[in-house]
């Protein structure tokens, strides 16, 4: 069934259809539609809704529900996500599944409340302390927001690891048509085996007591955990990379962009191709794991890459690593909550091609 829906509300519907059981959050713009929606809906369904006293408390409430093996989520925007980083590090160290959503706004500091993509580094590098990663999904339309939210719990449980969904404030506010029955935009998470719940805390009835911890003081134990996580991350990289490639086969230049930037880049690509240029688009859907191999393969033929981001240049570093010297990588972006412009992308493409 098709319906007109706002990005932030599509997220709520996706999470509910995906089996969300508890939601904790603290108010912050531009994502307040989410908690308003959940406040109305979740309690009626017998699920948990709680407005926390801070983002610090919210992420730790998520941690509390996650240790019981139930599906918990929090949503916030950039400054709030910064406050959650300690908790996210613990969630990764304790291997707890949950979903965290960042509707990004301009920074640094208090910044503004416009849409931005300035938290790419924070999201993809493990924004807290210690060696860890979580899966980062970057939807680019309202339909994808719905589908990613719906499947994110399964993905989190499959790997006992947090999943983060990030999109900019503009996409969160965008109203567009979504079709829940459409196959488009689905992650199609594959389960090879049944999800393991042998670790959850629910009271030690008819079993030995369990503990959940990341503190490992005995010599060698923490190193062992880190190698175990490394192996998990390797599997995620092997199985969960998602990327959309358009017109890359015979392109002279590929645009590389995700989220809202990818939408603007796509319309620039169409205009340029109509003018006779050969332009392709690489749209990473998982920002971690990054489609490194896929981009590297494209670079066998394509020798110019223009990365488009709503920041000062963050994903461009990953594209350079992926291209690995096989071609030239250039950057166009606007920081501070400014939207990238189609005309400026076109101008940059033409300049880059004529070099």
């Amino acid at each position, binding site marked *: 069934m098709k319906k007109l829906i706002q990005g932030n509300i599509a997220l709520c519907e996706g999470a509910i259809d995906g089996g969300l059981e508890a939601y904790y959050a603290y108010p912050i713009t531009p994502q307040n539609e989410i908690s308003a929606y959940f406040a109305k809906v979740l309690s009626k369904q017998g699920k948990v809704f709680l407005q926390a*006293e801070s983002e610090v*408390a919210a992420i730790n409430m998520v941690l509390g529900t996650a*240790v019981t093996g139930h599906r*918990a989520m929090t949503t916030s925007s950039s400054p709030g996500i910064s406050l959650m980083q300690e908790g996210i590090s613990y969630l990764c160290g304790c291997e707890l599944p949950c979903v965290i959503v960042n509707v990004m706004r301009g920074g640094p500091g208090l910044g503004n409340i416009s849409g931005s993509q300035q938290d790419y580094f924070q999201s993809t590098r493990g924004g807290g302390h210690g060696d860890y990663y979580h899966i980062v999904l970057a939807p680019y339309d309202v339909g994808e927001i719905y589908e990613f939210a719906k499947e994110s719990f399964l993905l989190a449980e499959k790997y006992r690891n947090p999943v983060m969904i990030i999109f900019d404030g503009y996409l969160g506010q965008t109203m567009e048509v979504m079709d829940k029955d459409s196959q488009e935009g689905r992650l199609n998470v594959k389960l090879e085996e049944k999800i393991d719940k042998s670790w959850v805390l*629910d009271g030690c009835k008819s079993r030995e*007591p369990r*503990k959940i911890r990341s503190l490992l003081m005995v010599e060698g134990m923490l190193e062992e955990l880190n190698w175990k996580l490394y192996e998990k991350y390797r599997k995620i990289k092997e199985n969960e990379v998602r990327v959309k490639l358009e017109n890359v086969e015979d392109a002279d230049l590929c645009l590389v962009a995700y989220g809202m930037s990818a939408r603007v880049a796509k319309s620039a690509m169409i205009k340029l191709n109509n003018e006779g240029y050969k332009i392709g688009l690489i749209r990473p859907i998982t920002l971690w794991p990054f489609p490194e191999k896929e981009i590297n393969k494209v670079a066998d033929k394509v020798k110019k890459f223009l990365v488009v981001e709503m920041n000062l240049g963050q994903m461009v570093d990953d594209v350079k690593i992926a291209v690995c010297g096989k071609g030239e990588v250039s950057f166009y972006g606007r920081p501070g909550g400014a939207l990238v412009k189609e005309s400026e992308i076109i101008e940059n493409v033409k300049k880059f091609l004529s070099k």
Partner: protein
Amino acid sequence: MEKISSENPSIEKTKFIKSKGLKDKPHNYCPGCGHGIVHRLVAEVVEELGIREKVIAVAPVGCAVFAYDYWNFDVTEAPHGRPPAVATGIKRILPENFVFTYQGDGDLAAIGAAELIHAANRSENITIIFVNNTVYGMTSGQMAPTTLLGQKTLTTPHGREVLRDGYPIKVCELISVLDGARYVARGSVTTPKNVLTTKSYIKKAFLNQIENKGFSIVEILSMCPAGLDMEPLETMEWVDKELIKYFPLGVVKDV
């Protein structure tokens, strides 16, 4: 060890039975530390109330994080100061389980003050066991929010001063003014009498949760000889003489 034989093998007296709430494992706490006593009191109350298989406990950051090695029920770790938020996330999704946090003075009254106040204010149906020994033990003895005026610590080498460091926080009195706080009591573990009274406070606080009455907290004045740089016996005497003067024992609130 359940039974101790007397010299006459025909008479066997039960002198001490270890609670089923504790694993049969020696503690690694320092000599004279109060955690062993408080762990045992909690374990005994859990056993007496028949809730061992329902418990999900939240351990703090600090020495007592190792509670998860000693208690014989489910325990999770939490970031420093966050146990009340973690406990909220557990109790809200599993209201039929029994959820308590075990926290020290730094964890509860400094870095975790916000989480404490708001869990109490929401009257979360959880219980907090708050061990107050007036010092950061695991990090080698810095000033805590409950350190007495004039008390020497690693970071107040000439004694705690009001103008620089402020006053020791009376957690029970502070929490008791919140409407959400249902049961607030302060005990100590320095004498057999105090130990028994404290156990009755813990029992009452746990019963409150079972009866869905809302938020309860029991503060327990305890000993940290290593952090306070005193002999074990001296620490007990100091708690009895000095600490109780500022932190009076008794039930502060019961509604």
